[in-house]
């Protein structure tokens, strides 16, 4: 009876491994997430102009690494600017006293973990039998073997800052933030989709 249930269990495990894979069934355009936050009470019609830097900040593990303008960055800056202009805002140069400041950042965070390789040298017949070394019947001793791995996850953020009221409030307030995350975030061909979807969920962001 024990053998029967072992076989049944093997059958069920075989089926579990055949579940429809949710991630593999996503189209490339379906993978990214677009998250936006807005400061409540903001009247976006009170702003008319914006300035957008021509480079992107690269931030790794909470530290600014550089400001760059790769082909991808240029595409992204252009697409974001176009979205703002389509919503009635005028892009002006940095020195022309803009109402809104926009910045784009690429953010990378590393996540590190440990892998315990375990006793791969024993417990099954795949490793060399001690007899091979001339010590049949002996046991192996291996010290613990730990490996590390690092996963780097990236995202893009777009920040919209209140410059118009900064002199009165003595601070530069964040009015709106957009985050793009997921596979395909840094695919230049997807930049138009990124910009469109990021702004589409913020209809209040218009002059």
């Amino acid at each position, binding site marked *: *009876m024990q*053998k*029967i249930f072992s*076989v*049944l269990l*093997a*059958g*069920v495990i*075989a*089926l*579990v*491994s*055949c*579940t*429809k894979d*949710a*991630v593999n*069934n*996503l189209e490339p355009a*379906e*993978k*990214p*997430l*677009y*998250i*936006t*936050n807005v400061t*409540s009470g903001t009247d976006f019609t009170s702003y008319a102009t914006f300035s957008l830097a021509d480079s992107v900040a690269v931030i790794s593990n909470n530290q600014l690494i550089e400001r760059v303008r790769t082909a991808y960055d240029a595409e992204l800056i252009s697409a974001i600017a176009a979205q703002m202009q389509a919503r009635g805002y005028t892009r002006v140069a940095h020195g022309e006293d803009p109402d809104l400041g926009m910045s784009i950042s690429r953010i990378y965070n590393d996540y590190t973990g440990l892998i315990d390789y375990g006793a791969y040298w024993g417990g099954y017949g795949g490793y060399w039998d001690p007899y091979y070394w001339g010590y049949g019947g002996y046991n192996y001793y291996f010290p613990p073997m730990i490996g590390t791995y690092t996963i780097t996850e990236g995202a893009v953020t777009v920040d919209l800052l209140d410059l118009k009221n900064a002199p009165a409030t003595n601070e530069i307030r964040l009015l709106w933030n957009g985050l793009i*995350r*997921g*596979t395909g975030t840094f695919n230049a061909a997807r930049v138009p989709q990124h910009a469109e*979807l*990021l702004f*589409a*969920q*913020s209809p209040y962001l218009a002059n």
Partner: protein
Amino acid sequence: MKKTGLLIAVLLLAAASANAQQGEVRMTASIAGAMPVGQMKDLTDNTTLRGIDVAILYGVNDKLSAGATIGFQDFYKKFSRAIYKLEDGSDISAVLTNSLQTIPVLATVRYSIKPGAAIQPYVSAGIGGAIVLYNQYIGEYPNQVNKIAFAARPGAGVYIPFGSGSETGANIGIYYQYMPYKHIPGITNLANLGFTVGIGFPMRN
């Protein structure tokens, strides 16, 4: 892959019968499908054909048999991209995917209404537990909830011997499976209508 998995499972189960020792025990191994009903349709309204059902029943007499049933069902639903409001007030645009697997393990009784007939209708009842594996993917990021739930399953079906005097035959059944489940917001139970198509045979050398 799906078909290969089902084939492997059925072959394994057939192998199990060859090794069985108890003469009065019968196995029914079936391919199973299920259609979500009630609140479960909020998670997925897709009928699944990715399932298996195995019953091992001991004949108490020519009408009544009792034993156990183990099953597996894989439910899946991908929702088109939509905007959702998060608790912190932010908005998220994402494609949501619900992936839910149930593995019921049930004590089962079956009552054959016309034993010995060419077509033998029966009614059955099962009660026990189910492993419920639930993953909601926001884009490609999963949120996993794995729990064990109570499960009850009334059912009915027909057994059709392959020939006069044959101990092996086809089995076609339907059932209603109910699982109280409160680990997903807005959901208090998971229920589905299932059907099985399989083979029944004695387990002996």
